[in-house]
C-alpha cells in the first residue's frame, strides 16, 4: 500500500509542476484538417510530422483518425513545416503560419505510389509508435503488424495471439496453449477483441491455435497497463486484433499449412450498390479456413477432428466522412471420437466448441476535431460434450454477450480534449454437467454490466500530457446482486531530452464481473465462464505503473515499465465443495503482482527486431480446500504463470537468394509446480461386500494405471521446473509472378530440441523412486505456402 501511495504522490507532484508551467504559457494556436486519397476517400493512420521551419526533428507527430481527420493543438505562434507520410503513398509537405488563438485548416490529398518502398514502410511503422508516444499518456501498448506477424516463427501458420508471447509482461505457461497471462493477471483477465468485439475462447484444439486467420489481420495490439478510463471489461490486458478489409479490388489470398487450408477474397462494392447505400466507398473481405487432414486421409483412416473458421469484414465510408464497419466470425472445432471403431479407441465422445460474433461499428467525424463512435454486437461461445453410447451423460457450457456502446470526443479549447461515453453489456451463461442420472452442475446466470466514463486529456507538446478520468462500473445480476464501482484513473507523462524521452506514471482501479472457472494449471482446456453475483465475487484491481520511454536514435525504442497490481475477488473452483451448498462452488481470494518490463526495439536496418526482458513476482491467496479442514485456512502460493524472469529476442533479417528470415529465442525461468512427496495405494469401500475396501488399482485398465496411485503433496507450487528455452526460426520467400505472388515458408520450432518440461511424473513405486516427465514441443519443422492473386 505504501508503494501505491508513493506513486500517487509522484503523480500529484508531476501534475502540480505541469499546471504551474501551463499557467505561464502564451496563448497558442493550432491546426486541423483531413487527408484523403486521389479518390477522395479518407486515409487513416497517415503520420503528420510537425517541424519548426528550419528544424530537422519534428516537435509533434500525430496520426489521422478513422475518417482521415487530424488535429494539432496547441502550437506556439510561428511558421511550421508539415510532412504527411503513409505507406504506399507519396509523401506531401506543406508550410503553415500559426497565429495566436487561431486554428487553421489544412486538407491534403495523397497520391498512391506504384511501388512500395521499404524505406517508407519502416518510416511508417516507426511513426505509429511515435504517435503513441507523443499522444498517449499512460497506457502501455505494443503493436505487431501483419508484416511482422508473417516472419514470426509459428506452429504450422502465423498466429496473431501466439505472436504476442514475445512482448514484455506476457507469460505463456505452456507450448500447448495460446492462453496467456499479462503482468501477473489470470488468463481470464485478458480482453480479446476482434475489431472491437470480444471473443470468449478464441482458440482451437483446446488452446493450441488461435482462431484468427492471419490473412485478415492488419495489426495486433496488446495494452498491458496504464489503461485510461475508456477501457473496461477486464483488469489485466486488452488484446485487439484488427481486420484488414483489403484494397477494395478483387484479390484472393490463400494458403496451405500442415494445419489447414485457407482462402480470403476481398473486393469492393460496385458503384451502383455504393450509391444505393449512400456510400462513397465500400470494401469487404471474407475468409474461410478448414483443417483438411480428415478429408485427405478419409480413404485410409478416420481422423476425428476438424476445425472451421469463417470470417468477414466490411468497411464503408459515407459522403460525410462517416465510417461503417461490420465484422462477423463463426468457428467450430469438432472432435467426434464416436466415428472411430470402439475396439481401437474406447473413449467414444463427441466434443465440439466454437464462437460466433456479429458486430457493427459506426464512426462519425465532426467539425473541429470532434467525433462520435458507436458499436453494437453480439458474441457467443458454446461447447458440448456428448457420449454416443450413454444418453444420460452430457456436458454443456455457453455464454453470450450483447454489447451496445457509444463515445464522443470533443476538443474543449486550449490544450484540453474531453472524451466520454458509456456502454451496456448483457451477459447470459449456462454450465451443465450430468451423468448417470445425477447433475453435477446446472448453473445459469447473467446480468447487465453498465459503464460510463469521462476522461480529459491536457497536452503541452513536448512537455506534458495529463489525463485524469473516471469510469463508473455497474453490475446488475440476474440473482439480484447490485454493485457500483467507481474506477478513477490518472496518468501523466513528462517529456524530456528534447521530446525524445518521457517519464510516465499512471494509477487506476479496474473492475471485472466475469470469471473463467478453468483450472489454469491444466496445460489445455476451454474457459467456462460465470458472472459475478451474490455468491461470486467481482474482481477489483488497483494498479500503478511508472515507466520511461525513449527514442535514443533513428529507429530505436527503449521502454522500461515498473508496475504493482493488487487483485481482490479472484476466484478458484472449490473441488471440495459441499454439493448441498451452491454458494461454495467458487472460492474468493486475492492476489498481487509486481514486476519490471524492458522492451528494446529496432525498426530500421537490414536486421531489425526486439528484445523483451520481464521480471515478475505474483501470488494468489485462497482458502485451502485441499487441507480438508472445515475452517479452510488460507494458503498463499505462486500461480503457474509466475515466471520470474522471461526474455525474448526476436529478429528479422535477410537471407541469401532473397529469402527473409525470422527467429525467436525465448528463455524463461521455471514455472512453479507442486511436488509429490510420497504415494500410497488408494482404496475404496465396497458396500455390497460388507464395507470391505478394494484397491482402486484393480478398477483401471491395468494395475499400473495412474488411478492406482494416490499422492501426498508438498507445499503448493513450491518447486519450479527447469529453465525454459526455445529457439524458433522461419524463412519465407515471395515469388512475384504476372498473376500474383506465391510465398513458400518453413518454420522450425525448438531448433536445438530442448526438453522443456510440461509435467513431471513421480513414481514412488519404483526402486529407487524415479521421476520422468513429459516435454513440450520437441524439434518441430512445419511448412506451408501462401498465394495472392
Amino acid at each position, binding site marked *: 500500500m505504501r508503494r501505491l501511495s508513493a506513486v500517487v504522490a509522484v503523480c500529484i507532484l508531476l501534475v502540480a509542476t505541469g499546471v504551474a508551467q501551463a499557467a505561464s504559457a502564451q496563448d497558442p494556436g493550432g491546426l486541423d484538417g483531413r487527408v484523403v486519397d486521389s479518390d477522395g476517400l479518407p486515409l487513416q493512420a497517415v503520420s503528420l510530422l510537425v517541424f519548426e521551419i528550419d528544424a530537422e526533428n519534428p516537435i509533434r507527430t500525430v496520426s489521422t483518425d478513422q475518417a482521415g481527420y487530424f488535429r494539432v493543438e496547441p502550437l506556439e505562434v510561428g511558421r511550421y513545416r508539415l510532412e504527411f507520410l503513409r505507406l504506399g503513398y507519396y509523401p506531401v509537405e506543406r508550410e503553415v503560419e500559426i497565429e495566436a488563438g487561431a486554428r487553421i485548416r489544412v486538407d491534403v490529398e495523397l497520391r498512391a505510389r506504384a511501388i512500395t518502398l521499404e524505406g517508407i514502410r519502416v518510416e511508417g511503422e516507426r511513426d505509429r509508435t511515435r504517435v503513441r508516444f507523443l499522444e498517449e499518456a499512460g497506457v502501455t501498448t505494443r503493436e505487431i503488424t501483419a508484416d511482422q506477424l508473417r516472419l514470426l516463427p509459428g506452429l504450422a501458420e502465423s498466429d496473431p495471439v501466439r505472436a504476442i508471447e514475445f512482448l514484455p509482461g506476457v507469460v505463456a505457461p505452456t507450448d500447448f496453449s495460446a492462453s496467456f497471462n499479462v503482468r501477473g493477471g489470470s488468463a481470464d483477465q485478458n480482453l480479446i477483441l476482434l475489431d472491437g468485439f470480444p471473443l470468449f475462447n478464441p482458440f482451437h484444439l483446446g488452446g493450441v491455435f488461435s482462431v484468427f486467420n492471419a490473412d485478415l489481420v492488419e495489426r495486433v495490439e496488446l495494452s498491458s497497463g496504464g489503461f485510461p478510463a475508456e477501457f473496461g471489461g477486464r483488469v489485466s490486458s486488452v488484446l485487439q486484433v484488427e481486420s484488414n478489409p483489403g484494397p477494395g479490388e478483387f484479390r484472393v489470398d490463400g494458403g496451405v499449412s500442415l494445419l489447414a487450408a485457407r482462402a480470403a477474397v476481398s473486393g469492393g462494392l460496385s458503384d451502383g450498390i455504393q450509391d444505393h447505400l449512400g456510400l462513397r466507398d465500400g470494401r469487404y473481405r471474407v475468409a474461410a479456413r478448414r483443417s483438411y487432414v480428415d478429408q485427405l486421409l478419409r480413404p485410409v483412416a478416420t481422423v476425428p477432428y476438424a476445425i472451421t473458421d469463417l470470417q468477414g469484414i466490411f468497411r464503408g465510408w459515407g459522403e460525410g466522412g462517416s465510417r461503417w464497419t461490420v465484422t462477423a466470425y463463426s468457428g467450430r472445432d469438432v472432435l467426434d471420437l464416436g466415428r472411430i471403431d470402439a475396439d481401437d479407441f474406447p473413449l467414444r465422445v463427441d466434443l465440439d466448441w466454437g464462437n460466433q460474433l456479429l458486430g457493427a461499428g459506426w464512426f462519425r467525424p465532426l467539425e473541429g476535431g470532434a467525433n462520435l463512435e458507436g458499436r453494437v454486437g453480439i458474441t457467443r461461445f458454446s461447447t458440448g460434450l456428448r457420449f454416443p453410447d450413454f444418453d444420460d451423460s452430457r456436458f454443456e457450457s455457453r455464454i453470450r454477450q450483447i454489447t451496445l456502446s457509444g463515445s464522443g470526443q470533443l476538443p474543449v479549447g486550449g490544450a484540453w480534449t474531453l472524451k466520454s461515453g458509456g456502454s451496456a453489456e448483457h451477459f447470459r451463461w449456462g454450465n451443465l454437467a450430468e451423468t448417470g442420472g445425477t447433475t453435477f452442475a446446472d448453473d445459469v446466470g447473467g446480468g447487465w454490466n453498465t459503464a460510463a466514463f469521462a476522461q480529459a486529456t491536457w497536452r503541452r507538446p513536448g512537455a506534458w500530457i495529463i489525463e485524469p478520468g473516471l469510469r463508473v462500473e455497474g453490475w446488475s445480476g440476474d440473482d439480484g446482486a447490485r454493485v457500483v464501482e467507481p474506477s478513477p484513473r490518472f496518468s501523466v507523462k513528462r517529456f524530456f531530452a528534447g521530446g525524445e524521452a518521457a517519464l510516465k506514471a499512471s494509477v487506476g482501479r479496474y473492475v471485472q464481473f466475469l470469471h473463467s472457472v478453468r483450472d489454469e494449471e491444466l496445460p489445455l482446456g476451454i474457459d467456462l465462464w460465470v458472472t459475478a453475483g451474490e455468491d461470486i465475487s467481482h474482481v477489483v484491481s488497483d494498479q500503478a505503473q511508472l515507466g520511461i520511454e525513449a527514442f535514443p536514435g533513428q529507429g530505436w525504442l527503449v521502454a522500461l515499465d515498473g508496475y504493482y497490481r493488487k487483485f481482490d475477488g479472484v476466484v478458484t473452483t472449490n473441488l471440495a465443495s459441499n454439493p448441498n451448498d451452491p454458494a461454495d462452488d467458487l472460492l474468493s481470494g486475492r492476489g498481487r503482482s509486481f514486476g519490471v518490463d524492458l522492451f528494446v526495439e529496432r525498426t530500421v536496418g537490414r536486421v531489425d527486431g526486439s528484445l523483451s526482458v520481464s521480471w515478475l513476482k505474483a501470488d494468489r491467496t485462497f482458502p485451502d480446500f485441499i487441507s480438508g479442514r472445515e475452517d479452510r485456512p488460507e494458503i498463499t502460493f505462486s500461480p503457474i504463470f509466475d515466471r520470474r524472469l522471461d526474455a525474448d529476442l526476436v529478429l528479422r533479417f535477410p537471407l541469401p537468394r532473397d529469402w527473409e528470415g525470422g527467429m525467436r529465442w525465448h528463455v524463461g525461468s521455471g514455472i512453479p509446480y507442486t511436488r509429490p512427496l510420497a504415494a500410497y495405494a488408494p482404496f475404496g469401500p465396497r*458396500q455390497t461386500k460388507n*464395507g470391505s*475396501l478394494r484397491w482402486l488399482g484393480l478398477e483401471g485398465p491395468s494395475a499400473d494405471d495412474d488411478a492406482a496411485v494416490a499422492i501426498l503433496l508438498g507445499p503448493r507450487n513450491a518447486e519450479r521446473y527447469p529453465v525454459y528455452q526455445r529457439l524458433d526460426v522461419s524463412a519465407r520467400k515471395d515469388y512475384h509472378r504476372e498473376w500474383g505472388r506465391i510465398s513458400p515458408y518453413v518454420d522450425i520450432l525448438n531448433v536445438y530440441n530442448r526438453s522443456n518440461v510440461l509435467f513431471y511424473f513421480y513414481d514412488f513405486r519404483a526402486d529407487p523412486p524415479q521421476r520422468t516427465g513429459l516435454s513440450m514441443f520437441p524439434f518441430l519443422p512445419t511448412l506451408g505456402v501462401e498465394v495472392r492473386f
Partner: protein
Amino acid sequence: MSARRLLLMLALVALPACDIGQVTVAEPVSSVIAEVYLRVDDGIPDGVALLHRTTGSDQIPVQGAVIEIQGEGPQVGRFAEQSLEDCIDGELPLDFEPICLRLVGPSRSLVQPGATLTVSVELPEGQRLEGVVTMPSDFEIVKPLTAPGLCNLPPRSVLPVMWTQSEGAWAYVPEAEINGLRDAFAEQGIEVQSDPVTLLGLSVSQSDTTIAFPSEFGIFNRFSGDREVLVALQGGLPPASDVDGRVVVSAQERNATNWNRGGIFNPSGQVRVPSLFGEGTGVAAGVVNRSFGFVVNASGDVPDCAGGG
C-alpha cells in the same frame, strides 16, 4: 472422469509431446495413511479401518496401532486387529503391508445415523491422527417398496430407485452387485470380465434421491473394458433366469465424499482431501446404507420391483 481431465487426455494424445528422461529422486516421505469407515448397514452398525504407509518409504510397522471412536458421552469404541481378508476385497498391491482393524464389542452402538464421533488413531511410536465425523441420518428406500427384501425385475427394463433424504449426506453412492451376467451376455458375444459385476452409481447432493437401475450404474467404468457391458445394460438386464443381485444405496457424508472424489489435478496421481489430521493423513468417513435384492425372471411369489407388490 471429469470433463476437463477428459479434454486434457484427448489433447495430449494428439500433441507432439516427448518423454523426459528418468531421474532418480529422493526417498519418499514416510507417512501413515489411515482409512476409517464407520457405517450403518440396514440398521447394523459397523466400523472398518485400514492402516498403511506411503509406498517405498521406510516401512515402520503400523501393527499395534490403537483406533478409537468417541461420541459426546464417555463411552469409547475401540477397533481390534483382524485378518486382512476381513477388510480387503480382492488383491493387494505387491509389497503392501497394511493392517486391518474392525470395531468390536457393544461400543459399536456408538455408530448411529446422525451421530458425531471423534476418531483417533495412535501408533506405537506415539504418532497420532484425529478427526471428527458426523454420520448421515437414516433414510428409507421407497422404491422398490420391498426393500430391504427381494423383488422381481423384468428383463430389459429400467427400474427407478428412490429413497428418502439422508440429512447430512453430501452424496449417495448406490452400488450394485449383479450375478450371472457372464453367462447371460455370452450369447450376445459380450465378454464380461468378472462375475459378479460390481457397478457404482452416483447421486450428488442430499436431495438427489433417485437413480435408474441398471442404466445409470457403472459411470466410473464407462471407458474401461466394461464399456460393452454397460452399453448393453442401458436397456436393462438380459433375459436370463439366473441373473440376480443386490443394490445398496450408500449415503456418504463430507469426509467420505471428499476422500473419494479427490482434489486438485496432479499428473503423478490422485490427490485426496483428508479428514484425519496430525502425523499422517487419512479419512474418518461415515456412511449409512439401505439395500434391496433383485432377481430377473423370478418365480411368481417374488413381488415385482416396479410395483412393489
